[in-house]
């Protein structure tokens, strides 16, 4: 098992294996995304409280979930890099940071749009949006550090340390922001309260969440493959692969 883990750490082997899975993964995820979105937009009944604007939930909630788990995955890759020094893990961290930031941004924008009909403003400092914003800053920090240190040898390790520091602080930040919000708005209506949803509502949500994950992995793998080609451009197998194209 550990052997497989180490084998996968080889850029060449990862490249070969991922090459086989990439297209099916992308295809499946796009299929699920369009299917789920169509279901959400057309077939889900409007919410008794929020009306049609609840449909944005199907874009926002998966994005919010992925924004957080994306950071956890980044921290996981960072830990792998620091502990086992597998260079591919560093590639994974480098590639996931902008992706995670983008999806966090999507969560922020859709969260704001969702709030507009309810609050009448394009932005509101509620617990969810605020902690998503801080999460966005954490991603930006990793990206900024990487780009500032691009030419330097220790860039990978520095970003990995930062990602781990962020992940340790993340629960503390979330908890404190949530507490802060209750302090200032005790009787608040939370958009993201989860009342028991009927099947017609949570099934498409589940599909969208899975679709988002698959799409996220597909794009992440694409980025990793690209980065592998860049980093290993002087090796024989890359030269061969490029001439075949």
């Amino acid at each position, binding site marked *: 098992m550990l052997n497989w883990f180490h084998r996968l750490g080889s850029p060449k082997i990862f490249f070969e294996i991922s090459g086989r899975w990439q297209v099916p993964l992308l295809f499946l995820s796009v299929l699920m995304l369009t299917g789920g979105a169509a279901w959400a937009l057309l077939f889900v009944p409007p919410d008794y409280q929020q009306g049609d604007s609840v449909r944005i939930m199907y874009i926002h909630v998966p994005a919010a979930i992925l924004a957080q788990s994306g950071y956890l995955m980044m921290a996981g890759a960072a830990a792998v890099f620091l502990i086992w020094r597998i260079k591919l893990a560093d590639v994974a961290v480098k590639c996931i940071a902008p992706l995670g930031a983008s999806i966090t941004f999507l969560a922020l924008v859709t969260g704001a749009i969702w709030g507009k009909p309810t609050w009448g403003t394009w932005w509101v400092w509620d617990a969810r949006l605020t902690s998503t914003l801080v999460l966005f800053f954490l991603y930006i*920090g990793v990206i900024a550090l990487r780009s*500032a240190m691009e030419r330097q040898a*220790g860039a990978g390790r520095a970003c990995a340390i930062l990602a*781990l*520091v962020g992940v*340790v602080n993340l629960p*503390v930040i979330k908890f*404190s922001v949530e507490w802060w919000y209750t302090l200032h708005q005790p009787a608040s209506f939370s958009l993201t309260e989860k009342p028991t949803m009927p099947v017609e509502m949570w099934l498409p949500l589940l599909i969208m969440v899975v679709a988002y994950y698959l799409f996220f992995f597909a794009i992440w793998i694409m980025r990793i493959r690209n980065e592998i080609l860049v980093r290993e451009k002087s090796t024989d197998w890359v030269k061969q692969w490029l001439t075949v194209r």
Partner: protein
Amino acid sequence: MNLFIASVQRDLLVHFRHPSEVLNPLVFFIVVISLFPLGIGPEPGQLKEIAPGIVWVAALLATLMSMDSMFRSDFEDGSLEQVVLSEQSTFIFVLAKVVSHWLLSGLPLVLLMPLAALLLFLDEAGTWALTLSLLLVSPTLSLLGGIGAALTVGLPRGGLLVTILVMPLYVPVLVLATAMVQAAEAGSDTIGYVYWLLAILFGSVCLAPIATAAAVNVATDQ
């Protein structure tokens, strides 16, 4: 222990010979606070209400300004790599750096709290709470800021980047500390906040230097 004490002594000595590095962030702090009445209006009621937030944000910014000096000069003159080479505990060295940073920037900021409170019309209870909150939190600020300082020490314009990296980490203490001051102003008990802030402080003392020491090792690895 010898390394710890000698390192603190050394830092204090170096900074007493160059006091401007220590004074600048403090001046910055007062300047920032003074801008708010100019920007918002001199009405005491208005300023008093938002005073905890203003003072705290100004304190965070001033602290981040002073962060750059934690490791930069040691890095540039080669002292930092000598520490790493010496096989002594980088953790202890980092802790010593944090302590001297706190003595040189955190503590003076705490002493400036009454002045800030005066400028923004905080009452007595609020002033006490403000001072106490910064006293409890400023070591945490130095600890967490040290991580950012160590990560960016090799970079030419690391100063602004430290702010981006460390600000999210400051959110919990900002939220707690300002709430503590507001609670004191409202006349309620603040002991709960004190416990939380101490808990965060102890957690940071144990964990932050690990990350900072790792970052120091990365910085000297070239």
